[in-house]
């Protein structure tokens, strides 16, 4: 694979000094580690950060980091002109010295504060503390003129990306993404609210998200998927059979199934969200392998772009098909007292968002790291769940998909077609050129 060979070469290049004549007080890898650790917490603790919103920020933050580094790299290629609407970024002064850690830290400081400007007082305090701490660390021992120039460059890149993001359709989130009014469809297969106890969730989350500007694919309709099985309450129908599969899965849950379902539950405000889960996996892999920072920003940019496009494509389909959730159908047709294992998300069922974005993550991370890349996922360890081992990103994506069946929140078609849609979307992402 061309992309992979380019990346292998990048490993070697990363051993070289990036900006001539400048000694770094702190490694850019440390900057990435600390900011992404905080970003994953902020995603969990910022009220508007539902999975689509989180995916969008992961994309812009990844692109910000990538462009901040690419501007001083002989190898990394800017994504300007490749991503929809992204124009040429501010260039560095020719022959002038920059400190990569300072540039990167300045860019991420500004970007994080912008994308999480609505977080609560604790997040604000944490961002301020992180900014101060890292700034002090990365500027220590660096010539003042280099510091000033590097900060200006990082901030200019962040401002450029921020301006680009402002009109993509996803910049303003009101009422945590829930419309004030919503008229459900009248067809029997139409989605209806599933959480009867929560007033805020009587309308679906972000019904217009599928219209947002995409990053690497033309638009939200780029990767269509076939319709779900035709709605029917006939026990001989495919639809009924799919519902029965969900019922039987719940009835026959093993401890392993429950562990899988909970490990990939990724509820907003209680976890890093599904896209954050994949970013967390990427972080674990990058840090396990001590990946150089150019490699890291490349991974974050591509993964972020793919995850964000996945949610746009998935949401386009969700509101096109407007399908009811298993809990609605099963209680209506099979068992009025049925309860799923997981909390049913407040939006239409088909396709599965986690499956779509996991399919994309599979394609992107496999392209970056290779087939049969084994890893351990500790994302849910702080919440008391044991780690999970995977032989490949493909296997992890498949497990993420089937976890929604175990959890009782998706039919099989939504999972299988979601994974397929995600892989189609991911292919657009890996078609981007990130290396010269």
């Amino acid at each position, binding site marked *: 694979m061309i992309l992979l060979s380019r990346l292998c070469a990048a490993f070697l290049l990363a051993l070289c000094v990036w900006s001539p004549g400048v000694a770094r007080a702190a490694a850019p890898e440390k900057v990435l580690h600390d900011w992404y650790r905080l970003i994953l*917490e902020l995603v969990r603790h910022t009220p508007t950060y539902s999975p689509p919103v989180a995916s969008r920020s992961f994309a812009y933050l990844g692109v910000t980091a990538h462009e901040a580094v690419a501007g001083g790299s002989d190898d990394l290629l800017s994504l300007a002109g490749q991503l929809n609407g992204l124009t040429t970024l501010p260039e560095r002064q020719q022959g002038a010295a920059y400190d990569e850690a300072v540039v990167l830290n300045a860019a991420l400081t500004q970007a994080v504060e912008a994308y999480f400007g609505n977080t609560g007082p604790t997040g604000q305090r944490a961002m301020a503390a992180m900014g101060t701490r890292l700034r002090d660390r990365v500027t220590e021992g660096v010539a003042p003129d280099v510091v000033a120039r590097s900060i200006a460059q990082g901030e200019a890149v962040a401002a450029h990306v921020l301006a680009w993001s402002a009109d993509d359709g996803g910049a303003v989130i009101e009422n945590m993404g829930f419309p004030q009014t919503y008229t459900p469809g009248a067809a029997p297969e139409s989605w209806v609210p599933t959480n009867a106890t929560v007033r805020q969730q009587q309308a679906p989350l972000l019904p217009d998200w599928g219209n947002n500007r995409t990053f690497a694919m033309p638009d939200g309709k780029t990767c269509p998927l076939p319709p779900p099985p035709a709605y029917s309450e006939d026990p001989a129908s495919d639809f009924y059979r799919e519902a029965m599969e969900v019922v039987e899965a719940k009835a026959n849950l093993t401890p392993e199934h429950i562990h899988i379902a909970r490990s990939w539950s990724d509820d907003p405000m209680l976890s890093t969200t599904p896209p954050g889960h994949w970013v967390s996996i990427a972080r674990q892999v990058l840090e396990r392998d001590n990946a150089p920072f150019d490699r890291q920003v490349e991974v974050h940019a591509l993964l972020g772009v793919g995850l964000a496009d996945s949610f746009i494509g998935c949401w386009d389909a969700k509101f096109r098909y407007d399908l009811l959730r298993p809990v609605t159908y099963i209680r209506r047709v099979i068992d009025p007292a049925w309860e799923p294992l997981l909390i049913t998300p407040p939006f239409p069922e088909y396709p599965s968002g986690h499956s779509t974005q996991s399919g994309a993550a599979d394609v992107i991370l496999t392209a970056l790291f290779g087939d049969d890349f084994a890893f351990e996922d500790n994302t849910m360890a702080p919440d008391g*769940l044991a780690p999970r081992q995977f032989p490949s990103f493909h296997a992890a994506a498949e497990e993420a998909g089937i976890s929604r069946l175990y959890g009782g929140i998706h039919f099989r078609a939504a999972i299988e077609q979601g994974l397929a849609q995600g892989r189609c979307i991911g292919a657009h992402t890996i078609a981007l050129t990130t290396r010269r």
Partner: protein
Amino acid sequence: MRQLSPLRAAMLPAPLIAALLLAPLPAFAGDTLTIPAFADDSATSGITSRYEGDWEYMVGGGVATFDCNADGFADLLFAGGSAPATFYRNASTTGGPLAFVPQVAGLELDAVTGAYPLDIDSDGIMDLVLLRVGENVVMRGLGDCRFARANKDWGFDGGDAWSAAFAATWEGGAGWPTLAIGNYIDRQEEAFPWGSCTPNWLHRPGPTGGRFAAPLPLLPSFCALSLLFTDWNRSGTPSLRVSNDREYYKGGQEQMWRIMPGAEPQRYTAEDGWQNLRIWGMGIASYDLNADSYPEYFLTSMADNKLQTLKAPDGSAPAYADVAFPKGVTAHRPYTGGEVVPSTAWHAQFGDVNNDARADLYVVKGNVARMPDFAQRDPNNLLVQRADGTFQETGDVAGVASMLVGRGGAMADFNLDGLVDLVAVNRWEPAQIWRNVTPGAGGWVQMRLDQPGVNRDAIGGWLELRSGDAVQRREITSGGGHASGQAGWWHFGLGAATGAEARVIWPDGVADDWQPVDANAFYVLERGQPARLWQP
């Protein structure tokens, strides 16, 4: 007087669960809804206390309501946050405007987040527990509203934490109370405070009388913001409910602990029927709304709030249905128009503001601190219960829809006119107090409990009021709300009734006989004695 087994006392006919959830309350009065009205006495009351401070005071902001000079009028202690706490003596006259006088009481500590009155040493003089950022302090009442620090004398280890929740009980008739204190984030964690919840503490009686043992950590702890000892299944032994802020825990949920005398606390689990609920838990209010003898619990949060009612009609499992939506108490966003973003709720308390014999719900609201995705102008709620058991918002028409950044609060009859008044503690702004002037309100009765020996105020008992087949019932608790505790008169509305019968089920399960009480009167219910009329 006769002995009732606690469980038998709790038993009622077991109606269908659906009927239980939505059954209209027994009403002493008719179906007409009396809209409450309040006069804002804040500017003239003499109260100027503000809850001050930055990040470490984003939670807390409580007020203690209690009578410390034996005049029957409830006095107030306001937490000041980074500013000193302020005590106000109630100088109101019966039926008059609400008037308070600041007075040095020995309570002027800084870093106070909340305060709960409790007669710890059962000497008949109210003591106080001050929750703080730093060392918690127990203050011994000396009489005439003077207090002295008693940590050393009572062996109370105040620790060093960010405390904002409290509850108390007397375990198994012990001679000394058990205090539960809820602790919040590790405040030393600057960049990564999430997941840093510090242990809650159980201060049990020590081996020698009159002192506390070393605090027992209640692990795991999940950043508690409200605690309540409550006999949820009428077993005779209260359990400890803990409402936790999901913003900061990882792997956490709402909790309830089984606290058996002499035994290690045990958490209720899914095997017991306890259900996983994760909210921004900030306050607990309880009341037996559906007259099935078991308390309902209102849990404040951000966006939707919860109203939990026991699913099992026999109290066999701690599983609850959330009926906030059908009851009309989700209170999830401002009701006054303008903002369409969610609310942030803190203190909650049930009380009958229009004396129609149905408990109403007061909720204090306020943004955490300039969170743009939540209402900046977030009116307090006054949800009045209708005859069918649902609630109607009246905060705006009643004149209590404060847009200040609320935290703690209280419902109490401060001028002893039979109408329940309201207090709200505000962050960075003066506290507010509203005098209830509801026209056409029903009758009322207020009672205070007194038993000899220990636990003079009968914490853990039940107070019941009967009129015909209808029984109103209150659990006598110390705890809950948001950082705000209360002791003193227990108020009931009577509607059009000219009288009723009252009885106490004391904390040891012994029930007094029913005794007649007249409308519009105060009574002291002393154990084993006839109800004693009290006059201001």
